């Protein structure tokens, strides 16, 4: 992850601490869901790409205002469910057969056991396990797929080091424009965020 280095005025003595301060971006605080919705629309229209809204709960309409593409999560979950379905069928068909296989990483043989004259490959009796594994695989994928695509879990993030940002999980709404955005300019972006009705705009250090 590259970060944008602030341009330090040339008159500053080189080698001072302020030289090496990298900023993550600018943080703008809003008070209501309505405010952030209007602001987000304008940030998108201004052409920013590396920016985000952070809210204590999902604000209705914000996805559209930000222009977020629909996630591919449902497609992943569908194929995970399909995998569970096939895996459950193969597992049951094999364990009730007299075959041999290495699918369990070791050589294993089936265990055909005749009971009540039921056929070994009795698909109706396999349905409950097929159903349960379909659900299990799909559910695990929806949670872990969501976390992975969100880049979570992570132990730290520049925003989490910011004191003002602590209210993002309480009652305030934030827009962050990251310094790596091609349109990011320290002063111009700050003025832009202030013009959107932010109650506060501050720098977030990396």
């Amino acid at each position, binding site marked *: 992850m590259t970060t944008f280095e602030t341009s330090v005025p040339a008159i500053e003595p080189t080698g001072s601490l302020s030289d090496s301060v990298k900023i993550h971006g600018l943080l703008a605080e809003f008070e209501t869901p309505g405010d952030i919705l209007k602001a987000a629309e304008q940030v998108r229209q201004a052409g920013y790409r590396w920016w985000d809204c952070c809210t204590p*709960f999902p604000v209705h309409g914000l996805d559209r205002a930000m222009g977020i593409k629909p996630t591919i999560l449902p497609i992943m979950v569908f194929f995970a469910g399909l995998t569970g379905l096939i895996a459950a069928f193969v597992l049951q068909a094999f364990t009730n057969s007299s075959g041999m296989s290495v699918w369990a990483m070791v050589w294993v*043989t089936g265990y055909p056991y005749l009971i009540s004259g039921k056929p070994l490959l009795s698909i109706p009796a396999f349905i*409950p396990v097929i159903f349960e594994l379909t659900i299990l695989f*799909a559910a695990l994928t929806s*949670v872990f797929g969501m976390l992975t695509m969100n880049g979570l879990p992570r132990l730290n993030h520049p925003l989490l080091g910011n004191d003002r940002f*602590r209210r993002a*999980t*309480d009652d305030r709404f934030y827009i962050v424009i990251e310094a790596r955005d091609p349109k990011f300019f320290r002063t111009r972006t700050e003025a832009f965020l202030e013009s959107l009705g932010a109650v506060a705009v501050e720098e977030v250090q990396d």
Partner: protein
Amino acid sequence: MSSIRADQVGGRIVDNTTEVPGTRAPLVLNMTTFGQVTAQVAKVSEAGRAPLAWYVAFAGSLGLLGLLGVCVLYLIFTGVGVWGLNTPVAWAYDITNFVFWVGIGHAGTLISAILFLFRQKWRTGINRFAEAMTIFAVMCAGIFPGIHVGRVWVVYWLFPLPNQMEMWPQFRSPLLWDVFAVGTYFTVSLLFWYTGLIPDLATLRDRAKGRLQQVAYGLFALGWRGSNRHWHRYERAYLLLAALSTPLVLSVHSVVSFDFAVSQLPGWHTTIFPPYFVAGAIFSGFAMVVTLAVPAREMFGLKNLITLRHLDNMNKVILVTGSMVGYAYSMEFFIAWYSGALYEKFAFVNRAFGQYWWAYLLMVSCNVITPQLFWFKAIRTSIPLMFFLSLVVNVGMWFERFVIIVSSLANDFLPSSWEFFTPTWVDIGTMAGAFGLFFTLFLLFCRFLPMIAMAEVKMVMPAANAHHDEDGHHHGTPAPATGGPS
């Protein structure tokens, strides 16, 4: 959207059970801002000391948990003979408790999944602790078949693991379906609960004063920062989980009922079992939610979040599912008569008038008559009455499983093999001990985790509507999807 604004009701309206046409009843009382919700819910886990009642309840629960430990160890070191099981009655308290606890566990997922799909916003006040209750109940349930196998050190034979005996579990047996159904149910319920907890754990992390709380909540919050790009996938994942859990919750008790229905025993071999068990599970689960919600909202001062309307709604669900259970009881008798099968007819006459007539009478009076009282609004909205009635339902539902299991087994085909089941102190101790485990876990949860889903409650507050303070509807122009980091 016409709604009663939170500031109009602030401090004045306490009764939100009255239906006013054209308006939505407020789900959060006496609060207008999001910060108030956070402060009130987080206060419980941030307080240095819990209420005195919590310590008393916790001590009692720990005592019962200790009893569970003693009973289980005694059983493991001695053998299943310490229970009162005998030859026709090989299943009694153990499986009764298993079915009872799995049933209790149904309300949580019903509230979190089915009510979510039906857009029942009132679920937000109660879903978190109902889901926690589900997980703890399924843990209690899992103990019983686990120790009933006798040789607990080979309990892994339940799972299809390659082994030197070249044997596999029997996949055509309902008992194995149960392993998969309950295992999947526990896993998915845990995922659902934890997914919902992530944003609230982040709230506690951000409010934490001490280093220990910050690290502990921080680790489990997984670095959540409320990014809307994350919320977008999060909401989709939550919807998918709800859609997956809905058939799952209906399947679990159906599979549990197959343990009985697939066998040939009169009284068990019945096609009505799956829907009847599911209705019974929801009935008992909601009763347990009421049993827990009533003291919890008193103890932690959450009456404005778990309002009378929430309790009223739950009592309505108890009324509906209780009526379904009553219908199933009568239909079983009708079919037993209509089938003309001698053994089937005997099984049901014996159930009502045989040696377990007292258990049957208790079951019918608790499960059929009690819920009908909830037709009256005065009873649905009376806190002491609903608490008492929910306890009655819990007792009734325990006896339902006892009646089905024991009365059918004790008097089977041959009168010469009939036997009467009498529980031993270990049977009773294990049953009481499971309640100890359940309440210990539940009390720890109440104390250290957010009992109310803060982020979700904020969403259903009038202030969360982005167009809250505007007159007309205004939606932004639909944006073309940009190529940003999504």
